[in-house]
């Protein structure tokens, strides 16, 4: 069983490369089309890619600090948050990784997330509401789930994916602004006539659709990671009931986490916006998480 987790980690690292390659091609295509259609051509695409790449790298490298700043978390204290702190130490021992930093968000909605580009820079973050509502064994289940995201390199994968999705959003945003303000070499384009108009329409379609496609891919990746983290978390605690009953407690709570934004929602253990319920089939495409009842059912059958 332990071997299957090791192979999952390898699998995850390989998949990270694949996703990066795919996204690079995707981004280059989008940049090319938008560049052609805005009239600035390849130089625009090149400059935009370099700038977006720099921003992307920065937000990947400092992802832990950025997320923490965005959610207003503070460092947990061994004395004040004894259970949380020691449980994290214990699960780190079980996983054989260095103890991640533990942060607390002062919010009563129960939730948790992990981030950081590798196990050495990992951060586990939990809301005050969750820390007080859970028993020690339930806390172990939640922390083990988060620790599995770190151990399986999910946090890195998701950080990279978030950056790539951000780059696409950035490109299309920039393009729309240029179209709005008229773009360059208007006279050139007017000379081209029909082709110019088609290019602009194509560009707008790309600018609108590509962030959507990128987000759907991101969310699909995120959902699969959750099941895996549940399973490998249980491998650490050897107690599926702990996580199952913690998830149950969280699902009964209807409070919306105010510290979460659309940019950080996929990081959390359960969807922080659970209050909003869509029943349409396509809403499933935009779920960051698999249905919580399904997760509990799988855990209870382990």
């Amino acid at each position, binding site marked *: 069983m332990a071997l299957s987790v090791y192979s999952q980690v390898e699998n995850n690292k390989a998949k990270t490369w694949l996703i990066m390659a795919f996204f690079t091609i995707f981004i280059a295509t989008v940049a090319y089309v938008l560049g052609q259609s805005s009239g600035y051509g390849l130089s625009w695409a090149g400059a935009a890619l370099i700038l977006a790449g720099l921003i992307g790298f920065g937000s990947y490298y400092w992802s832990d600090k950025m997320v923490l700043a965005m959610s207003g978390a503070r460092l947990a204290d061994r004395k004040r948050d004894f259970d949380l702190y020691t449980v994290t130490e214990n699960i780190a*021992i*079980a996983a054989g990784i260095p103890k991640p930093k533990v942060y607390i968000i002062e919010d009563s909605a129960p939730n948790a997330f992990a981030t950081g580009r590798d196990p050495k820079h990992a951060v586990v973050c939990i809301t005050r509401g969750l820390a007080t509502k859970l028993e020690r064994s339930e806390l172990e289940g939640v922390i083990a789930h988060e620790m599995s995201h770190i151990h399986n390199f999910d946090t890195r994968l998701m950080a990279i994916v978030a950056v790539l999705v951000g780059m696409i959003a950035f490109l299309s945003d920039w393009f729309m602004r240029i179209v709005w303000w008229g773009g360059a070499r208007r006279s050139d384009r007017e000379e081209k006539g029909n082709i110019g108009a088609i290019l602009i329409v194509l560009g707008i379609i790309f600018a609108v659709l590509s962030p959507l496609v990128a987000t759907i891919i991101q969310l699909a990746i995120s959902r699969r990671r959750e099941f895996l983290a549940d399973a490998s978390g249980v491998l650490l605690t050897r107690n599926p009931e702990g996580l199952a009953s913690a998830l149950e407690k969280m699902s009964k709570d209807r409070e919306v986490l105010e510290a979460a934004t659309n940019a950080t929602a996929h990081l959390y253990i359960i969807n922080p916006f659970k209050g909003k319920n869509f029943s349409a089939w396509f809403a499933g495409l935009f779920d960051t998480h698999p249905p919580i009842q399904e997760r509990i059912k799988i855990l209870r059958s382990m």
Partner: protein
Amino acid sequence: MLFFILILCILVILYVWYLYNNLVASKIRVKEAWSQIDVQLKRRADLIPNLVSTVKGYAKHEKNIFENVTIARSSLLAAEGPAKKALANNQLASALKSLFAVAENYPQLQASGNFLQLQKELGDTEDKVAYARQFYNTAVLEFNTKIQIFPNILMARNLGFTEVEFFQTQEEEKKKVEVEFN
């Protein structure tokens, strides 16, 4: 024919080379896991003098129990190797159990903040030992399996690798007995 033998020799050398490095890496993982158990057992032992003196402040007459705990503690510190350490750790656990049972007769002690803190710390240390044990036993299982499967078993002993002991606790031994009775 000569060519064939040469290929065979190279394959065998490559296999032994790979096996040796692989086993060394596994063995190091086992050692690291063991040192984690060691650290936690040491931490457990370090908490005890403080606990004994706190309880003594409220329950002076229970000399026997203090002695048992102190002896168990020093034998844990003196024990070498997984099997002996596990045994000493189990003895310390039962000595502590009777200490906490006695402590229940002293309401003032139960209310003391220092005692509660120590109780929490000891409980946490026990969790830590359990998790370190789990990690260690997984590493041992992996290592022992590697040296016992064919064809590794033909070479492992000659390369100087022998099986490693598991770190077993009371609960597991109890479970084994139950299975036998059934």
